[in-house]
């Protein structure tokens, strides 16, 4: 066990966990930020995606010991009112089916648009290829990203 101070959604948090604990389980078990999901534990499905200094990081494969002073943003901290352009576009296109993967999809999409405000369709597909949607809402996800790009 070791004490780690991490920056999550603008706040400083201290947690006492094993050094190899993935950020995912610190968020869920310790901080009860439950929007970040567990899907595979091997960075293959993307439901655990968070922003680490703005990058779309898979929190299930990222040990707490490697975070340092990098800033974590989770789906809960993406916007104060749930009105980030990507979130709004997701509602406008009624994207979710079961909804389990969508927080991860939104975190990846918002990281994409922050780096590339006007992505091509090809760039969207490639950027989102690490996020599985078992309900296969991919066409709506990509439509929503195109809408959000216009609003950003």
């Amino acid at each position: 066990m070791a004490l780690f101070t991490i920056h999550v959604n603008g706040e400083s948090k201290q947690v006492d966990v094993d050094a190899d604990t993935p950020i995912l389980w610190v968020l869920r078990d310790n901080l009860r930020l439950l929007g970040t999901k567990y899907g595979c534990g091997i960075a293959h499905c993307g439901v655990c995606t968070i922003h680490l200094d703005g990058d779309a990081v898979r929190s299930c494969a990222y040990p707490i010991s490697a975070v340092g002073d990098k800033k974590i943003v989770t789906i809960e901290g993406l916007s104060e009112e749930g009105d980030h352009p990507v979130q709004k576009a997701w509602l406008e296109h009624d994207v979710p089916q079961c909804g389990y993967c969508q927080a991860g999809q939104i975190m990846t999409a918002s990281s994409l648009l922050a780096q590339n405000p006007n992505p091509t369709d090809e760039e969207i597909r490639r950027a989102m290829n690490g996020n599985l949607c078992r309900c296969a809402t991919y066409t709506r996800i990509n439509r929503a990203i195109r809408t959000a790009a216009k609003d950003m």
Partner: protein
Amino acid sequence: MANSHNSFKNYKHLASYIIALILVVVFVISCKSKNSASTEYVVLSKITKKDSLASLAAFEKVYSVLMHPRCMNCHPNGDIPLQGDDSHIHNMLPQRGPDGMGISTMKCANCHASTGVPGESTPPGNPLWHLPPSDMKMVFQGRSPRELALQLVNPKLNGHKNLQELRVHAEDTLVKNGWTMGGNRELPPLTYNEFKDAWYEWIDNGAVAPAN
């Protein structure tokens, strides 16, 4: 770990005079080859003739490691890394990007943290996980032994490394990582130390490229 690192430093120190000598020769030969019509880059074969057989034998070992998935997967033919013991195209199709670090939401470091988390198939960690950059792709996949040897010693194709720098590359953390990725990944056919010895033997004996 610290011990082996120090002992390597000592070794490097002892060897540095020899290497400096070799470097002069390399420089002379490389100038020569620039003038020749051939694009082929044959190194040191003349002055270390008596050791060329040892170099060749060593390269055979080196080649078996470099073409192993643990090394080759990040030296792919295209712009997408390979993955797994069967060297399939990386499932998520991340792209190399200009600096080899990936692109936008698909940066290598987004999944390959500085340290990985333990597990059978978790992404291996490394602080500098990357592919060769797009202006020098250092492709291993599909290269014959001769092609790979010639590529490795050519500063225009090997990341601007002279032979000394190339030699030291055996100590690169990503190279070493090939043996420490964990999970149930197959290890390269030689141990790391065996590989390092073969690498030095190949270079120190003339970095000979095998005939086709």
